[in-house]
């Protein structure tokens, strides 16, 4: 399953794949770099709804996107986070700057494809 990228205003929504490992993270890093070079992005929202597996490559992806957005507070969000993913986010310390939401906000339901 491929990741899906959508933008709503200056927010980039990334629907993460089932397995967020090294090859998947590489692909998302490249694609989000491409989008961020084309459109002004202020916030990134990661949707973990379909994600069953993650390792430190996924953590590196989140850290790298945070750096790319200038490490501003509130620039990184995560939704539909399961217990296991939450454990990894907490353990790695990224939950300090990643706002974790249990449900996806309404505004992010209608996005346009990029």
């Amino acid at each position, binding site marked *: 399953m491929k990741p899906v990228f959508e933008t709503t205003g200056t927010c980039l929504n990334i629907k993460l794949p089932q397995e967020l*490992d*090294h*090859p998947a993270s590489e692909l998302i*890093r490249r694609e989000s770099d491409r989008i961020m070079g084309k459109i002004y992005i202020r916030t990134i929202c990661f949707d973990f709804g379909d994600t069953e597996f993650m*390792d*430190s490559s996924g*953590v590196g992806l989140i850290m790298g996107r945070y750096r790319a957005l200038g490490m501003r507070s509130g620039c990184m969000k995560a939704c539909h986070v399961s217990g296991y993913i939450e454990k*990894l986010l907490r*353990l*790695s310390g990224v939950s300090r700057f990643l706002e974790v939401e249990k449900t996806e906000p309404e505004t992010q339901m209608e996005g346009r494809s990029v």
Partner: protein
Amino acid sequence: MENSNEATIIFDSRPENEGLARVTAAAFCTQLNPTLEEVADLKTAVSEAVTNCIIHGYKGEIHKIRMKCRLKENTIYLDIEDDGVGIPDIAKAMEPLYTTRADQDRSGMGFTFMEAFMDEVKVTSQVGKGTCVHMSKKIGK
């Protein structure tokens, strides 16, 4: 020997094989009737070790990685080995957030995750010869 079982797979250091390695370890471990969380922990640890072989050990070149899985009583033992560049300072490499590849969005959390999810993690390495990560986890504590 009774109550023991062993399997070894040798595969190319391609990122696509990370999935193969973790699914193999998880499937092998099912004989111990693990919980879903134990399987997830094991898969993450294997993924970290294999990613290290690919990115750091072989620096993206294609060579062989060996993964030996062994069950004894209710413990799974894993040895994940490469013949790559080796690690000059193992203690430093295992520090949380330490990475030599921050440019590639690497988190430096690989060994930290292995240590968090397995009962024991030991690293043996020789510069220029290769690295072996030995891990074990007791299932059904």
